[in-house]
């Protein structure tokens, strides 16, 4: 069969995905692996990180989902958990950490400070939400967020990843 190239806007990957099943199946396998193994890199200021710690500890146990490998380095992290207001001073650090993370990568804005700036939204030194500098995948409102709510956000993100939406920046 001759491949019809009617649509010039179709790129190679889409063309392959249209004609080749193998690509899509591998994509599914990768998405499965990725969705079950978010290694988080945690940023936070004071109260949401306490809940992040609680989420990792015995009672809530992040490890059940396989998300417990908390990396201290952006190089090995998949998920940036922003749990705190982004001050102007912290902004370059967050941007840098985000740039240092390898693709594919995701961001969770945890707590109202990260989502929107929270009570500090009109402050002279605080950004109105982390999505003003980096793209956010899941917003978890709360003040602070319960560990279960964090899990809910991560599981929502898992659904999103399994559908195959990941960002190439």
């Amino acid at each position, binding site marked *: 069969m001759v491949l019809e190239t009617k649509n010039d806007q179709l790129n190679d990957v889409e063309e392959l995905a249209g004609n080749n099943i193998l690509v899509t199946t591998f994509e599914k396998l990768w998405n499965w692996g*990725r969705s079950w*193994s978010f290694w988080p890199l945690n940023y936070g200021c004071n109260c949401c990180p306490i809940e992040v710690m609680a989420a990792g500890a015995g009672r809530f146990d992040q490890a*059940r989902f396989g998300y417990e490998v908390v990396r201290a380095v952006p190089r*090995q992290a998949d998920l940036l958990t922003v749990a705190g207001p982004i001050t102007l001073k912290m902004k370059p650090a967050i941007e840098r950490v985000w740039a240092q993370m*390898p693709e594919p990568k995701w961001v969770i804005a945890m707590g109202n400070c990260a989502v929107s700036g929270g009570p500090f939204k009109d402050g002279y030194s605080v950004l109105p939400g982390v999505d003003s500098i980096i793209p956010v995948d899941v917003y978890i409102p709360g003040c602070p967020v319960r560990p279960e709510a964090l899990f809910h956000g991560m599981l929502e993100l898992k659904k999103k990843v399994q559908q195959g939406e990941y960002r190439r920046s």
Partner: protein
Amino acid sequence: MEHLFTNLATALTGWMITLGLSPVWADVILLLVKWIIIITIITLNIIILIWLERKVSAFFQERLGPNRLGPFGIFQTIADAIKLLTKEDIVPSAADKLIFKTAPMFFIVVAVMLYTVIPMGQGMEVINLNIGLLFFISMGSLSTIALLMAGWGSDNKWSLMGAVRSVAQMISYEIPLAFSLLGVVMISGSLNLQDIVAAQDNIWFVILQPIAFLTYFIAATAELNRGPFDMPEAEQELTGGAYTEYTGMRWALFFLAEYTNLVAVSALMATVFLGGWQGPWLPSWLWIIIKTYGVILVFFWVKWTFPRIRMDHLMSFSWKVLVPVSLGNILLTGAGIYFCQWMGWC
């Protein structure tokens, strides 16, 4: 069951000779087959080990650990591996690219080399070297270079700090490590690991050499960069040490090599101190697996119990405590052997 694998090997050699290959080439091919089997076993084993460590650490902390993927979460590591395989491969622009890329390969090659001499059962080893123990120690000492390469190549202050720390630590702990094994060598009178296993026919060396056993355990923990001696990769202070800049599969190679080292050192410990493949009822290769896993579990137990100790304490502990103790152990063993011969017991 006992001779399952040795019989298989002999059958394979015989079959290759009937195909018209000369015995030398058959031996070479058999060697390659052994290597492939060992590498496969290492990889599969490590997937299980990582899962096991996660589970064990969870139980120590009254958690559940991974339990969602498959029965008891056994596929968790596979998901992690798939993810690591498909991650972006970042080489920092300021890094020394050649060294940066070679370091993980060098590390894993050195780690796999350790398996050459370990007897995995009666007559089951890749090469029966008559200086097996020495070969093991010397190969273990090479991993310092890989870490140094990683630290230097990354062009990152944390990496370099981690590399310097790990090299300092590994070179200082190599001395008590080797000295603690000397007592065993003195009693068995051989550096060949099969001979050492054979010498433990009646009594395990852990009973004859308890001090050496302890010294070796501590020094091995430090050699493996495992907790509580994991200063070289202390996440809280060094953000991962020499591995800081590595992503995806390159980092996974380091991780793999560390666990490979762990299994090798545990297997050596089981071989030298715990009677190797010797044991009743079960086949010999099963015995060494059981003993190795027992030692690994103890390593896990120690890691998840003790907090990390300070670098200067670590170094002074090696030079001021472990080295004199292991030297004293050599003296004690010599005196014991002399006494034994004088009494006519051996």
